[in-house]
């Protein structure tokens, strides 16, 4: 029976990145993945013969450091493609489009404000950049590295100068709505710019609690928050990661669902010595790394009888209700959006911030939004292998769709939502209904079941101030270690958080290699 140095639960990008760093240092690593494919929520899957899609359909802040450290470009993953234009769709064709500092479709005043806004936000995003790749200090720990991290942030803030520092402190936790209203006139522009701070979360423009900070988080990385689809698709990230880590000696097993993290009582503490699979097979290791979400990791795999009462309660009350559904359409041709030459950008359907807020209001009370708002991309325009020649895939993130529907999810409820979403789409792309060969709608409940993520939350736990930095997912486990000796966590629920970024996997590996 083989004994490993490290077992990693979950072959999402964080698990694979962590495995690669460890294996490169000579550790014997086994990655266990419950599903049959790599990638987790970014898995590329055929949803209709010849048509493939991934729940995560673009990349905005993938860690440049990880890409470089692991030399991913040598294995076919490249971040170095031109970013997609973000387009705020308007039914009569008067779109707003954004690309870096370039903006079209708004008045002169907004053009000016946008450039200033964008430069300031980028400055702030750059300020935070180093902290995403650092282990956060432990609360109450006054050791030098911990104090230094704080000091560094303080110094960086100070170096901004008095005015900018004040501004940063002011806006970081501002509701998106206030920031947008202060800066812009165009309703459509405001809606589009607030989008990235909200997507994935149970938050809307008027919600307090760090939506602006979440926006800054997404603006890190080489494209300053602009979304890209890699030349060879999202899949290429996983092909590259698999290649890198396997070459370094990592073993990957798919279809291997972990049902239990084995716990052994040491004299002084509880310790993990491996995992048990759903098949009953046990595999031993010195260390177990869980990249699944905190609730699943602790409440299900570790078991609350092995956890302390207050800690259990902190994990239990983490806010992690998924509010995003996914729509995949197989289309017999390129969809035509009114007033748009080619739909090769990231298209936002949200006419104004009220539309987002009202959509959220419905979902808050357990209903599907009467007028859903969404982000649409046609990934097959960037990557031809996703659909048969001349045909296309449409991929949409639909907000807000509650994980817990008031009258519970049924096939009928799903069909009603799907129809509503397609109706909304056809308002902007009038001929689209005729082009649909097949459609697939995944509710947060479907995402939970298909991808083993509690409540189907993209980021495992909400990206909000009380669940970020040294509080992510909660104090005591924010440094990737856990109360169980030998058990580490590094999924999206760990600092810095979700999205296809890779920093949790990178940071956790760094802690283990200390």
């Amino acid at each position: 029976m083989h004994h490993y140095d490290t077992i990693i639960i979950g072959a999402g990008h964080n698990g694979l990145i962590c495995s690669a760093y460890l294996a490169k240092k000579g550790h014997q690593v086994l990655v266990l993945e419950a599903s049959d494919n790599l990638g987790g929520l970014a898995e590329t899957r055929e949803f209709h013969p010849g048509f493939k899609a991934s729940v995560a359909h673009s990349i905005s802040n993938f860690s440049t450091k990880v890409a470089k450290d692991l030399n991913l470009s040598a294995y076919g993953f490249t971040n170095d493609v031109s970013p997609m234009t973000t387009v705020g769709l308007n039914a009569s064709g008067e779109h707003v489009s954004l690309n870096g500092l370039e903006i079209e479709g708004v008045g002169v005043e907004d053009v000016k404000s946008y450039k200033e806004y964008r430069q300031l936000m980028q400055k702030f995003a750059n300020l935070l950049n180093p902290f995403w790749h650092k282990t956060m200090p432990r609360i109450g720990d006054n050791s030098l590295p911990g104090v230094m991290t704080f000091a560094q942030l303080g110094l960086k803030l100070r170096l901004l100068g008095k005015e900018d520092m004040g501004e940063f402190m002011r806006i970081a936790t501002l509701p998106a709505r206030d920031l947008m209203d202060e800066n812009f006139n165009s309703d459509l522009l405001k809606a589009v710019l607030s989008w990235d701070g909200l997507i994935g979360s149970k938050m809307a423009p008027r919600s307090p609690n760090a939506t602006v900070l979440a926006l800054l988080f997404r603006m890190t990385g080489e494209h300053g928050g602009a979304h890209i689809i890699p030349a060879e698709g999202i899949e290429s990230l996983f092909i590259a990661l698999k290649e890198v880590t396997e070459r370094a000696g990592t073993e990957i097993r798919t279809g291997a669902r972990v049902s239990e993290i084995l716990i052994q009582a040491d004299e002084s503490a509880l310790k993990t010595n491996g995992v048990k699979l759903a098949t009953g097979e046990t595999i031993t290791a010195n260390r177990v790394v869980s990249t699944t979400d905190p609730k699943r990791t602790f409440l299900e795999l570790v078991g609350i009888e092995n956890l302390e009462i207050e800690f259990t309660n902190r994990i239990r009350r983490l806010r992690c209700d998924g509010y995003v559904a996914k729509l995949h359409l197989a289309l017999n041709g390129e969809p035509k959006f009114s007033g748009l030459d080619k739909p090769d950008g990231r298209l936002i359907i949200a006419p104004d911030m009220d539309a987002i807020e009202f959509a959220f209001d419905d979902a808050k009370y357990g209903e599907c939004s009467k007028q859903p708002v969404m982000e649409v991309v046609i990934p097959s325009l960037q990557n031809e292998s996703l659909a048969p020649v001349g045909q296309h895939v449409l991929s949409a993130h639909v907000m807000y769709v509650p994980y817990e529907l008031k009258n519970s999810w049924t096939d009928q409820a799903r069909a009603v939502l799907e129809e509503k979403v397609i109706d909304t789409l056809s308002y902007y792309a009038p001929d689209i209904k005729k082009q649909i060969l097949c459609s697939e709608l995944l509710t947060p409940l479907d995402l939970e079941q298909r991808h083993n993520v509690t409540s189907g939350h993209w980021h495992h736990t909400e990206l909000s101030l009380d669940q970020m930095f040294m509080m992510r997912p909660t104090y005591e486990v924010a440094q990737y270690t856990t109360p169980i000796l030998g058990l580490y966590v590094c999924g999206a629920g760990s600092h810095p958080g979700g999205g296809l970024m890779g920093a949790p996997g990178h940071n956790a590996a760094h802690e283990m290699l200390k």
Partner: protein
Amino acid sequence: MQSVEQEKTTLHDPDEVLKHSPFHEQVEKHCRLRNWMSWNGYLTARVYDTLASEYFAIRSSCSVMDLTPMEKYRITGPDALKFLNRLVVRDVSKLKPLRVTYVAWCNDEGKVLDDGTIFHLEEGEYRLCSQHHQLDWLLMSSLGMDVTIVEETHDVAALAVQGPTSYSVLCAAGINGLDKLKLFGILHTELNGFKVMVSRTGYTGDLGYELWTEPVNGLDLWDVIFSVKDSGLYDVRAIGLAALEMVRIEAGFIMPGDDFNTAETAIRAGHDRSPFEIGLGWVINFDKPHFTGKKALQEEKGRSIKRRLVKLLVEGNKPPVDSFLYDKKKGQRVGTIKSQIWSPILKANLTLADIEYHKGKPPAEIWAEIYYQKELEWQVTWARCRISKDPFWSHPRRSVTPPERF
């Protein structure tokens, strides 16, 4: 109209500020001093008639105390044992049916929330008794477990029957099977046609029992016990909380909230206490795989001792009420007296005191600064103190089975 009438009878009477226990009719009759106090919201006698005679009933004959206000929780369900073992610092898996054990429980930081007793009533069925209200903590602790927690404080009538002749009195009252009941044992029996549970437990450090029954049988139970007095052979006396306070200090039993700040009520850092710090290190089962607070307590075990709640004997006869303690007369302050009584049976000033240790050791000398009044004038004096390892009072008959008859 009828339903309104019905509702009235079940609602709390607004004129009744404090709740009446099922024994109230008798308690009120016996409580000649009308010296009442509140215990957990119940109208409770502090002293019935004479404190001295109540005290000596406990130490020399047979005392009866209304125990109903004590917090009680019924814990059942498939995960009951798992739940308790994660909750308390002691290993409950060793607690056999029909046995009782003393426990304490902590928060994650290893600071004591409360202490109490667990009764293993029958296989898989437990009662937890605590000093303070714990339902919120218990319910929070039970999240995710298949366990049912029901507060039964108001649904069980309980009497403590304590003292050297308690065994003889209860036998005379018609309770059979006590001869085999060991210390911390439970006996389910019947008395005059109703069910009574007897446990050989108490808060006095002496021979004694606690009797538990349904509230409706409360007065019958009281009558059966006091009828023994009418036979003329034994004195049986109702006692209040003042007498209990004396004997519990003699026996070295601590009172959460009086002798130490419970973690829930401590506001400032360092004002909560670990089991070690209140002298309950012996209750912790470190060989149990896991319990809440274990990690913190393991760490504390490896560090040098900072403070202890100790049994402290104060010389002389001046009452050291809330006295500060010093390492010599007018020296450095090293602690505070938390509870104190004059023990009539030991003729001594007995106290429980919080003492600061230096480099892991208690102060070589401890002196109490005592303020007392003499003819309405305050005086100050100093008294030498000694730490007592053992309880000031613990009679061997507490655990002899069968107990001696009188």
